[in-house]
């Protein structure tokens, strides 16, 4: 069962990258805001159907939920908007890796302080090294991408 779940999640990661690529090419013709808008609209339509058939929670509890929990939607908007913008400028892989680094850094910080009722996992030596490796990875992506662009120009 576990293996199937891991494969399933792997597909989740694959779809996230495919989404970046697809939104990037759509936005070149339609614009950043327009692409993000369309993504949210089609996503809501699909989820409306899924909830009708499989929803077990209570969507109306939204009116009793604390405001700080509801404010996460602005973060969701920022993620997609910035993602679409970045893909058209620096490409899929550079965007993906940079997003992942931002994600991991904040996860480590959230764990360290135990924000949002999460487990407190302190920032130990191992995690400091992880942050260091990510920083070096970001540097190489930046450099590698610059080289690819230069080579592409020379071929033309």
């Amino acid at each position, binding site marked *: 069962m576990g293996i199937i779940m891991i494969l399933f999640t792997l597909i989740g990661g694959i779809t996230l990258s495919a989404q970046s690529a697809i939104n990037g090419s759509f936005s070149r013709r339609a614009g950043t805001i327009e692409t993000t808008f369309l993504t949210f609209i089609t996503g809501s339509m699909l989820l409306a159907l899924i909830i009708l058939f499989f929803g077990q929670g209570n969507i109306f509890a939204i009116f009793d939920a604390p405001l700080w929990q509801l404010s996460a939607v602005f973060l969701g908007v920022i993620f997609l908007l910035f993602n679409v913008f970045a893909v058209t400028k620096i490409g899929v892989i550079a965007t993906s890796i940079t997003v992942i680094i931002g994600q991991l850094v904040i996860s480590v910080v959230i764990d360290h302080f135990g924000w949002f009722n999460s487990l407190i996992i302190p920032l130990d030596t191992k995690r400091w090294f992880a942050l260091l490796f*990510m920083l070096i990875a970001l540097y190489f992506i930046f450099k590698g991408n610059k080289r690819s662009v230069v080579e592409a120009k020379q071929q033309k």
Partner: protein
Amino acid sequence: MRFIAYIFALLAGMALSFEGAIYGELGKNIGKLETSFYNFIVGAIILGLLWLFFGKGNLSYAVKAPKWSLLGGVLGVVYLTAIVISIPFVGVGITMVAVILGQLIMSMVIEHFGWLGTNKVKINREKVLAVILMMIALILVN
């Protein structure tokens, strides 16, 4: 200009982590699928307003565009659902590793072959090295 795009991508990742942590709490209140539904619906409203006031592009291109290029929203839902379903079975740590691995490998392949309308960018030494470094970082974090 390219430098700004990196900062934006970094901010996007940070937003994604905060979002995940906060939505985890909301999910306990109203249900997981309902939480993603809330995210997409209210997100569409915010973007609708942004589009009305600041949209300079061409939304009607959606009608003419090749159909595969409209699948961004559907893929976003697949991603969210995959995560929501798998975390109770294998835990957050392994889930994140699997997602990130899928992301890294897929984005390399997509760009290398120029799939899905991306500019064809060959994989080079630096990129492979960056992915290896990311894998080491992932093992260290968990």
